[in-house]
């Protein structure tokens, strides 16, 4: 176990300042395959080492600790719902299932076998959940405790992403092409057409849903999941934005833009912030490493996990600037 403290050293850059406060040793690094999951006073993540236990990072004490004795290597799609419920997807093939915890991942149980590793979770934050995979789904109306099968609801697409937009009051499920589905209850769906083929994850932040185009060259936004706006004021171009991750709240969203080298590995990370839901962007500090994860804790802070010289770094936004969290 590491005893981590705040160093608070500033990094140079042209944009908003980053301050380093915490790292994780290799054995405690967050993995790239799972979202950071907000806990009451910090985050949970899967370690990078072979044991891959759920680990918590407490934002008040800056300590991290193993939460559960079971290894969940490759856990993904972790989502926090209401009443401290966290669900995530773990396993592959016929061993894939939705796992659920009601106590911050200290105890975890398998609640729904989906038989498909490409299962995507979404919740409305009011106790209703969607687990979408292949062209089928499960829905839950009791905060993930029990699930009901919904066969064939996605017709001809293979699910590639799912989210819930509170402004529209709709779930959205995307596939590999321009076709996508929306639903108010996860049971009855409507087929719609995106203006462009999305690439990678879709993000819903504060009632706005975003998807990006090939190589990050374009970013689209919708608040009703019907009409989409091409955000033309993005500061990155298709040549330097191969992967974009978004996180934030109604006041600010942060884009982590990752460039890949010729070998296909993450090379450089650039970060930007927007205070008008993506209409305009401001340059944040250049970050010398690469990013694995970016997430919002649902309280006040956006967190970013980067990787610099194989040491995972955790960064935090405050109301006015980023604070980089680094261990002693």
């Amino acid at each position: 176990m590491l005893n981590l403290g705040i160093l608070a050293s500033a990094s140079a850059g042209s944009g908003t300042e980053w301050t380093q406060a915490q790292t994780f040793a290799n054995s405690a690094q967050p993995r790239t395959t799972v979202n950071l999951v907000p806990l009451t006073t910090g985050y949970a993540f899967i370690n990078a080492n072979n044991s891959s236990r759920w680990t918590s990072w407490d934002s008040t004490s800056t300590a991290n600790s193993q939460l559960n004795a079971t290894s969940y290597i490759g856990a993904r799609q972790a989502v926090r719902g209401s009443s401290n419920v966290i669900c995530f997807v773990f396993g592959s093939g016929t061993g894939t299932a939705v796992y659920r915890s009601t106590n911050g991942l200290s105890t975890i149980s398998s609640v729904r076998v989906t038989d498909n590793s490409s299962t995507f979770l979404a919740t409305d934050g009011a106790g209703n959940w969607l687990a979408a995979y292949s062209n089928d789904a499960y829905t839950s109306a009791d905060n993930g405790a029990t699930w009901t099968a919904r066969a064939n609801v996605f017709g001809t697409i293979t699910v590639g992403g799912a989210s819930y937009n509170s402004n529209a009051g709709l779930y959205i499920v995307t596939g590999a092409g321009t076709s996508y589905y929306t639903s108010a209850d996860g049971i009855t769906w409507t087929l719609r057409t995106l203006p462009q083929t999305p690439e990678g994850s879709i993000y819903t932040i504060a009632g706005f849903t975003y998807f990006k185009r090939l190589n990050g060259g374009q970013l689209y936004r919708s608040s009703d999941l019907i009409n989409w706006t091409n955000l033309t004021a993005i500061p990155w171009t298709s040549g330097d934005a191969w992967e974009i991750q978004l996180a934030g709240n109604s006041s600010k969203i942060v884009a982590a833009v990752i460039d890949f080298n010729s070998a296909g590995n993450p090379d450089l990370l650039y970060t930007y912030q927007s205070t008008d839901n993506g209409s305009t962007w401001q340059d944040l500090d250049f970050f010398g490493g690469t990013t694995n994860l970016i997430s919002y804790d649902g309280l006040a802070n956006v967190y970013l996990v980067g990787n610099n010289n194989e040491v995972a770094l955790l960064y935090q936004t405050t109301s006015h600037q980023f604070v980089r969290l680094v261990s002693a």
Partner: protein
Amino acid sequence: MRFEIDSLLVVRVFNDGETIPILEQPTLPDGTPFADYASAEQWAQDYIAQTLAYVDPVEELPITEEE
């Protein structure tokens, strides 16, 4: 699977034996209204045929948790 079309040309598709539709389609996916009953009917038939022809992607071998 079966479908119904109401007087407003809203297509509803049902799984066999179910009364709640899995699809409620008021327009074509791009938002264009169905031109008439025949076009809505043709769209519904094509949609069901394509859905029934859907094949799950090949899955890898399972892995499970370890104590």
